[in-house]
């Protein structure tokens, strides 16, 4: 069973569909035409580039190159995730990179070795693709947790000081915030697992079935991947909170002002 090819002309024909959102945008003056066109163009260019490098990556299938590529993806993810938050790039880039890289790499290797029994653990088709999927999912949780954690301390400074000044050590005073940050980061994945298969068919499963896999194989991949995603989100989020704890507070346990990009207060 082969997947139907999509020819370049068909891509153009598909783009004709965009006339509908463009028409609606015009009619309701949504002012979204420019950004629609731009985002579709960017998506097309980026994905063509991704298709191209994946093609060569799969062809070469060099373990070092694959690993290197995965790390580049982690680096890009770390930058984008911090840039989209209010956190200070300089303080957060290293801990973010380290926590995303270490947990995702460990989990993808575990997956490749113990779950799907790959001969070559660094096989591009699995390492880069599955690693990328874990990364994409865990980076969101990461930054939700980290920025939530630091914002919450800033907002509830009174509560934090109350505990510090009544005998808590720094870790003990931070525990409620750690719990809160981790819970918020994990809730979306838990919610997804609750409804998966009922409300929606996940993209990976759909893709596998289009590619010719049996539905049973596709769901087994989906189950294992969801577990891996949940684990990597939990582990990398906990790790980033622990790692940044050291650099974001002064020796007196007070949060540094430089944690955030711009100083809104004072």
């Amino acid at each position, binding site marked *: 069973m082969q997947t139907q090819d999509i020819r370049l002309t068909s891509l153009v024909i598909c783009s004709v569909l965009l006339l509908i959102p463009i028409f609606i945008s015009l009619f309701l003056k949504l002012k979204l035409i420019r950004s629609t066109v731009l985002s579709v163009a960017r998506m097309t260019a980026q994905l063509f580039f991704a298709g191209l490098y994946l093609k060569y990556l799969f062809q070469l299938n060099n373990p070092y190159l694959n690993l290197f590529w995965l790390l580049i993806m982690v680096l890009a993810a770390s930058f984008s995730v911090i840039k989209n938050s209010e956190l200070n790039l300089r303080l957060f880039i290293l801990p973010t990179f380290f926590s995303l890289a270490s947990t995702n790499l460990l989990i993808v290797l575990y997956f490749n070795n113990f779950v799907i029994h790959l001969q070559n653990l660094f096989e591009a088709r699995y390492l880069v693709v599955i690693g990328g999927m874990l990364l994409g999912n865990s980076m969101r949780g990461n930054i939700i947790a980290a920025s939530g954690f630091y914002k919450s301390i800033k907002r509830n400074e009174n509560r934090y000081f109350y505990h510090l000044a009544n005998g*808590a050590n720094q870790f003990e005073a931070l525990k409620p915030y750690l719990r809160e940050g981790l819970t918020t980061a994990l809730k979306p994945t838990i919610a997804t697992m609750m409804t998966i298969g009922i409300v929606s068919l996940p993209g990976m499963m759909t893709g596998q079935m289009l590619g010719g896999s049996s539905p049973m194989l596709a769901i087994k991949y989906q189950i294992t991947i969801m577990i891996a995603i949940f684990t990597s989100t939990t582990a990398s989020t906990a790790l980033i909170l622990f790692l940044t704890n050291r650099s974001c507070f002064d020796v007196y346990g007070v949060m540094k002002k430089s944690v955030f990009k711009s100083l809104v207060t004072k």
Partner: protein
Amino acid sequence: MITLENISLSFANKKLFDNFNLKINRGDKILLYGKSGTGKSSLLKMLLGFQMPDSGSIYFNGKISDQKSIWEFRKKVGYVSQDTDFGQGKIYALLTEMLHYSNHRELEPNRETLLNYLDLFDLPASILEKEMADISGGEKQRMALIIPVFLQKSFFILDEATAALDSGMKKKVIRFFLDHKEWTVIASAHDREWLSQPEIKVIKTGEE
């Protein structure tokens, strides 16, 4: 003994303290008295290491305030500020959590004493079962005061800690802290109930 030496602090170009000096001996009862915005909270926060002075030094028993002495000092401190925010959960869960801090390992929690304190501060024992979000501002404030007492602290830093209480309760709370001769208390307030107590040493802020 705590010594504040030549402390200066400014906020937004406003000088709050200019070469300010203060000695706090064991058992002292000190009141920082002045309008809001005159630096009372900042001074207490400097004592706790939450705020750094622009210049000057703080000594704990002759040792300069640094990352070691400050954490040592905080072990003895009970700190209550205005509008203490406990977060979420039940009151007893908060108490349990605070009792389990490693600094409190040697405490032997006694249910009786806790109930006595609650009674003294006009709080029903059932408050322990309540959600922190569900108790009133006044109850919260009294709970915030009871917790460090229950944790057997001996150095109390009370930042407008009685502001939310009615006059009768205010007097009761103030007497309670002053009557413990061995406790050191440094409080900030702008209400009269504190001023009229004989053992209090008043330091006026914002008058330089």
